[in-house]
């Protein structure tokens, strides 16, 4: 237990901040994923063949390739790509991207592919009559989307989105390979310097279990809130 003391003697405070980092990366990745999903869902539903295949390519490739490989692509390729763009604008110094950004971005792209599928499924299972009725009644676009379609979509999407959140939360453990100090990386450091890997990795598992348990509790509340009236 001494190993978990706060301060210089134990690893308690380090692990606490590492947990915060995991939460921060997961939330950022989830938001980036939502941005990707809002971009790609219309493409997947589009009747235009080219747009449609772009949308399908995104979800198929990302969901068919291991997360670790995607992370390596961005970890090793990220700064190269940015430096290439910068060199067009005449900036030739070495640019190193922040591990937090690379991590959240690569996990975000992965979680975006899952979110896209969730959004697509939710949109497709809304009754067609709802779209038609809203159009016939002459609502403007804002009310049409935010007051009629979105609330119905959220009701259907939230149970699946909480699955995506779980996947995203667990995937963040993989960005420890890039050196970002989140739960896994911190446990690795602690295990290395105390020679007690069993304790620290088990403790990391407990932290992850706590995170998944607490977030499921919160998301279930959200789910009941949005399924009111059904």
């Amino acid at each position, binding site marked *: 237990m001494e190993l978990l003391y706060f301060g210089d003697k134990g690893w308690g405070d380090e692990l606490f901040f590492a947990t915060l980092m995991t939460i921060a990366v997961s939330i950022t990745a989830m938001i980036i994923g939502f941005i990707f999903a809002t971009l790609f869902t219309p493409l997947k539903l589009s009747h235009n063949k080219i747009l449609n295949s772009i949308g399908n390519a995104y979800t198929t490739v990302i969901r*068919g390739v291991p997360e670790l490989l995607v992370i390596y692509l961005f970890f090793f390729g990220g700064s190269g790509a940015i430096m290439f763009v910068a060199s067009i604008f005449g900036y030739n110094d070495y640019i190193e991207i922040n591990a937090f950004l690379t991590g959240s971005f690569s996990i975000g792209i992965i979680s975006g592919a899952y979110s896209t599928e969730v959004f697509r499924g939710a949109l497709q299972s809304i009754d067609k009559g709802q779209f038609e009725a809203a159009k016939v009644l002459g609502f403007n676009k804002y009310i049409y989307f935010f007051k009629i379609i979105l609330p119905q979509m959220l009701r259907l999407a939230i149970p699946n989105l909480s699955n995506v959140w779980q996947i995203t939360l667990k995937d963040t453990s993989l960005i420890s390979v890039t050196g970002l100090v989140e739960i896994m990386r911190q446990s690795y450091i602690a295990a290395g310097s105390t020679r007690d*890997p069993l304790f620290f*990795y088990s403790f990391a598992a407990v932290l992850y279990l706590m995170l998944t348990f607490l977030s499921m509790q919160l998301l279930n509340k959200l789910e009941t809130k949005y399924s009111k009236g059904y």
Partner: protein
Amino acid sequence: MDIELMINSFPKLLNATLITLKLLSVSLILGIFIGLGFAILRINNNKLINKFAYGYSYIFRGTPLLVQIFIIYFGLGQIEYLRTTFLWIVLKEPYWCAIIAFSLNTGAYTSEILRSALQTIKPGYLEAGRSLGIPSKIIFTKIQIPIAIKQSLPAYGNEIILMLKGTSLASTVTLMDLTGVAKYIISTTFKPVEVFIVAGGIYLFMTFIIHNVIKYLEKKYGFQT
């Protein structure tokens, strides 16, 4: 784009794919047995047994696979007692550690898939079996299990693909599987895009095949309930 590198790295990556496939198939086979065992425990009426099986699947589904591998590979070696038993022969090899972690992980998911399939079997089938005077053991092995397997095919297909992606984590415990070799080539040549295309293409090809095999099996053995 370095086409030459892509062509040169292809045989190396293909060679590494063999290890990936070996890891996948061994852990899936072990995982099915573990999953079936825990699914049977889950539908048991004894609360303690039931809780135990639920706890197993909750822990393995609630923590990242990476943590599980690290606990088994780095953690278990720390227990002095284990080093004296024959288990140590297994646990000192990263290959077997990865297989243990993958099997336990996929076992947890499989048990959930099979449990929900077992619980959603129409009571009519079981009643028909009972009224025909078939012993309950045979009802279980010849009616419940085959129906559950058929019903869980689509979900199990997803699990196979998830596990295929999961085997990439073997590279974190020094195994040179497809991802491990890809990372090695990337870090020596600094050409991530080219290697990603080749290695990702191989993974996509495997997912494509698994997806279609499952679809075929669903068509052949699946039925409308």
